[in-house]
């Protein structure tokens, strides 16, 4: 938020309010917010830590603020990228022009774990594979945004965006009265309409949409039930659905009811034991056959993961040029692929300055933040890279922007990133807001909630 020494104009109003409010009252508000979150039951389980599967994510009352002009540019960039990613997905499951043109290596696409040969030649309605694209961004200057990664499967966190806003409006109504903050609460309705817009051709009448969840023991279950509720659709588990003839049905107290669109929050490999993992108890036997014969739409489409692979990421600017004939508006972070011998050499020589990630990893696990690591940690990580170079990519540590955040002794700058949510159906829509994640520890660059990161409300101010 700092523009050199000056506070960015977008923050003036909020900072003014902070200055006028006594510290004790701010502390009270903070406690109140936490109590609200626990009461509502927004929790997030941390993988690998055991114990409490219903932990709260830290919420920071200080919003992150964008002006409308700043947002407009970002919006163009995110939409552009979402369109290109979907064009790429359609292409690699059909004629693969981009591979034929030599713009991306065949191995990277076809030998990718996330590439599903089972859906080659299948055309999902509207040609859309990724209906909700979550693009993780960091800001390094007033008009400079970098994309950290794309999430084309089932990006999570949108419930935080909505609940954070809800809590902020309950606690600080005066701020919302005086500032013109773009609303985000129509997101569930937009999502519902986006999903309905890609109903299969065989659908008769109003499409029946359901959210397919792994169940209440999943760490993101809160979000699943929240979204289903907000959209007014059923939240189902695999056991609730079955295949009969050409269609998928859900078991209801009134008998079987046909389902047209499945917004799934389970991985490809668990969708259907007859197509993918035979031991999956979460999925629906025969679902993929109904999907492939056009009886149901699955969102995101099976196989969409090949577009958000960290190694494929480096080619997204080329995709934008190839499919849209445009120059990318959002930049990619420079990325060294350890599968490339030259890059590998550079990475190993400069580990102290780089961030290294596993190609298929997520959630901030298994990564090395060079400048924050000890000599021993770096040496150990170097061995891991050498053992399987193709599994790693490296990026420079960016001069990330910071945002004022409430910590134990008042406001202090903390690093943030941003995940806006882009809906792709018949139309493309970017919700004016998003999930701002903040690294709560001083100097930390890791914002993942699984690594102790927190969240903030994200405001887009009208001009």
């Amino acid at each position: 938020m700092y523009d050199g020494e000056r506070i960015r104009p977008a923050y003036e109003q909020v900072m003014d309010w902070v200055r006028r409010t006594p510290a004790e009252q701010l502390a009270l508000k903070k406690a109140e917010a936490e109590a609200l979150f626990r009461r509502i039951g927004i929790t997030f389980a941390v993988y690998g830590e055991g114990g409490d599967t219903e932990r709260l994510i830290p919420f920071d009352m200080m919003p992150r603020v964008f002006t409308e002009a700043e947002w407009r540019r970002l919006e163009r960039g995110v939409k552009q990228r979402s369109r290109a990613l979907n064009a790429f997905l359609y292409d690699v499951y059909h004629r693969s022009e981009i591979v034929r043109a030599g713009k991306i290596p065949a191995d990277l696409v076809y030998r990718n774990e996330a590439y599903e040969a089972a859906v080659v030649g299948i055309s999902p309605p509207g040609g859309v594979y990724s209906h909700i694209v979550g693009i993780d961004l960091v800001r390094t200057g007033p008009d400079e945004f970098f994309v950290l990664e794309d999430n084309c499967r089932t990006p999570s966190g949108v419930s935080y965006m909505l609940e954070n806003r809800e809590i902020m409006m309950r606690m600080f109504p005066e701020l919302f009265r005086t500032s013109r903050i773009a609303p985000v609460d129509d997101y569930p309705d937009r999502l519902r309409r986006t999903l309905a817009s890609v109903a299969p051709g065989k659908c008769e009448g109003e499409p029946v949409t359901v959210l397919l969840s792994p169940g209440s023991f999943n760490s993101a279950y809160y979000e699943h039930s929240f979204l289903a509720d907000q959209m007014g659709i059923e939240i189902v588990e695999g056991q609730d659905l079955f295949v009969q003839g050409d269609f998928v049905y859900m078991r209801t107290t009134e008998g079987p009811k046909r389902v047209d669109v499945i917004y799934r929050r389970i991985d490809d490999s668990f969708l259907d034991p007859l197509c993918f993992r035979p031991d999956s108890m979460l999925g629906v036997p025969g679902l993929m056959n109904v999907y492939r014969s056009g009886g149901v739409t699955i969102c995101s489409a099976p196989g969409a993961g090949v577009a958000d692979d960290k190694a494929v990421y480096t080619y997204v600017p080329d995709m934008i040029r190839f499919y849209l004939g445009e120059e990318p508006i959002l930049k990619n972070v420079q990325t060294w692929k350890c599968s490339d011998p030259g890059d590998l050499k550079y990475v190993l020589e400069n580990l102290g300055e780089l961030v290294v990630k596993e190609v298929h990893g997520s959630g901030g696990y298994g990564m090395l933040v060079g400048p924050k690591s000890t000599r021993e940690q770096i040496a150990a990580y170097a061995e891991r890279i050498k053992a399987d170079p193709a599994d790693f990519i490296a990026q420079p540590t960016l001069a990330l922007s910071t945002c004022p955040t409430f910590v134990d002794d008042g406001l202090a700058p903390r690093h943030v990133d941003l995940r806006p949510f882009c809906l792709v159906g018949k139309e493309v829509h970017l919700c004016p807001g998003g999930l701002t994640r903040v690294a709560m520890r001083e100097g930390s660059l890791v914002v993942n909630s699984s690594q102790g990161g927190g969240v903030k409300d994200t405001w887009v101010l009208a001009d």
Partner: protein
Amino acid sequence: MLLNVRHTTVYGFDAPMRFVTQSHRLNPVDTAGQKIRSWSVAAEGAAFGAAFTDGAGDRITTMTVQGPVERIEIVVEGEVETFDTTGVLRGHRELISPVCYLQPTSATVPTGALLELVRATVDAARGTELARAHRFSAAVTEAIAYAPGTTHAHTTAAEAVELGQGVCQDHAHALIAMAQATGLPARYASGYLLSGEEAAEDDASHAWAEIRIEGLGWVGFDPANACCPDERYIRLGSGRDAREAAPIRGVSRGGGAEALDVRVEVAQRQQ
């Protein structure tokens, strides 16, 4: 050659099943090597639907049976005119990139004894791809003796080579793994075979490997019979391994243990 097929699969459940769902790859498609004269798949009390042609060009259908059910009998019957294409798969429309078939599955990961066999068999840099494929096939025939009952559905290629025994599934997996290890796309093909008079009854259900040869396309190799598929073969479909290419994949919910009885008869019709 005119081949008549009768393939029955009978499931018996010791406690009634609530619901049975199956994905069938039981409908052969026309290629240069086979013309389907007539074909039917039937099961009493079953619903069929959700049919489509997948990216590999196979015809897939879905079968469901509502319980409670204690016995399901699936009867496949048909007549196919076959031609010898010396193993080359021609006239088959498919969309999946051959590069996909370079990626091993858990059944075809090349390790241990299998890698040694590859090294002992060829110098990958020498000879044509076709020559290499033939030598691999011969090596598999040599390395794995036909011995039913020594391996099971989940035996991997490397395990079968290590054991030195197996059935057609193991031969095919081993050949796929060897081909992939030297950069040749390879896959599993399932189908029927008109076997000699001495063969056991269930021998007619068969599997072999297909290897992608530059300039020729997909070429079948049957290490179990030390030959390439000819007019005695009917091809049902393919996949990266036995599981993916299985003629029937199914899930049964509720109920108890399952007993399976499969009978396949392939006969040449006299003209």
